[in-house]
């Protein structure tokens, strides 16, 4: 079983918080790629807006010693995901490629999975998504449109992974690390290149090399809430702030 897994790519991401400016470019790119329903004012008011990747802004201090920190949060595709064992119909599971897959057609909407996710990256379609007729022309045919009552979350743009791997096999062309057809929409969009995508099993991939470089005591790599034992497939790189005490700086 373990050897089998090593034959499959293990998809993951690196998020460099030091590069992120909080521009929300990834958020809109994701909404465009994945047919995410338009978040109306009422949706925000009811705290049920759907954003598969979001930018969280944290305040530190107050004027004049004030800082704001931005961090992009997306599904961590946990190796030990709290959302997977609780689904009564196995609509969410961990596949051979290290991703947490959400199968829309199996979902019956108990929302137990969202209940368990410590990152709050699972979103429920409380309403039937609606688009004016002409805007439907923009919808991505590679992605199923979810109706009311279905859970959804970041899928690492699995439709792009499927398409790229299929086309590379069809054309007998090797799929290189950092291939832009393979990268999720958010990774391609990010103006500062704060998001990186790749294969953890490939030691030459950009993300593996970064993890290698930054994983030492005092290094920048960490997993979000990793002490909870979720084994996230997304590594974060800490923001560098020279004015903060030396316990976590370079």
């Amino acid at each position, binding site marked *: 079983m373990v050897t089998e897994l090593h034959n499959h790519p293990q998809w993951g991401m690196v998020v460099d918080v030091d590069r992120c400016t909080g521009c929300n470019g990834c958020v809109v790119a994701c909404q465009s790629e994945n047919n995410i329903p338009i978040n109306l004012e009422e949706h925000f008011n009811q705290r049920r807006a759907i954003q598969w990747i979001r930018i969280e802004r944290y305040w530190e201090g107050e004027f004049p010693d004030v800082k704001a920190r931005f961090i992009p949060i997306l599904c961590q595709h946990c190796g030990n995901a709290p959302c997977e064992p609780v689904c009564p119909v196995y609509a969410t599971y961990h596949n051979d490629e290290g*991703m947490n*897959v959400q199968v829309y*057609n199996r979902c019956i909407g108990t929302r137990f999975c969202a209940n368990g996710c410590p990152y709050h990256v699972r979103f429920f379609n409380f309403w039937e998504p609606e688009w004016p007729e002409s805007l439907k022309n923009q919808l991505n045919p590679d992605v199923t*449109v979810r109706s009311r009552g279905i859970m959804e979350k970041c*899928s690492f743009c*699995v*439709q792009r992974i499927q398409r790229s791997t299929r086309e590379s096999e*069809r054309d007998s062309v090797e799929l290189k690390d950092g291939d832009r057809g393979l990268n999720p929409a958010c990774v391609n969009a990010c103006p500062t290149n704060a998001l990186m995508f790749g294969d953890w099993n490939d030691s030459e991939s950009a993300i593996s090399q970064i993890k290698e470089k930054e994983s030492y005591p005092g290094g920048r790599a960490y997993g979000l809430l990793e002490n909870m034992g979720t084994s996230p497939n997304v590594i974060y790189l800490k923001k560098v702030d020279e004015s903060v005490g030396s316990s976590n700086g370079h």
Partner: protein
Amino acid sequence: MIPGDFRTPKPNKNQLIKMAFAGLIGLIVFSGIVVALTFVLSSWLGQPIIFGNEGPDQPIAFPHNVHADQLGMDCTFCHRTVEKEAAASVPATGLCMTCHSDVGDGLEEIAKMRSLYDDDRSIQWVRVHRVPDHVHFVHEAHIRYFTAEEGIESSQVCSKCHGDVKNMEKVKQVEPLKMGQCVDCHKQNNAPTDCATCHY
């Protein structure tokens, strides 16, 4: 037992009317259920269970048996993208016209097609094979697998799911094309049974 135990009182007029009415309603409900069940069963099987399955009427009665069998045309001559893309694709009218600008004078169906072509209007074919929106079926991967695995031509793979189209005058769906069938074939052929292969 007392005499008169099983003697039901004769219904009076009111009760008779009520019973008749209830019976009528019951009959309607019963036939409604029968219709619903027929509908559901047909849907489940993927083809109608009453009235026979002759395939839908198409706007132009294109006979596959004439073209694929008698003339020996290959499936991929018209359904060109089956070896490259997810959809097999219905050919453009322009492809038909490569022959039929000359061939087929006097045939009504050809005349219909020619007039549509001249008016720059597309032919609205009725879909025969359809999988739900949440299934992303890719023809190319299947053609590639079977041609490599069984060493056959692309067009010989088609009949595995579409039946003997070569001998159909009107195309009809012969396989249920339900998920069970897909998964069975995947398991037999060691193809991925990961949900994310088709559902995303």
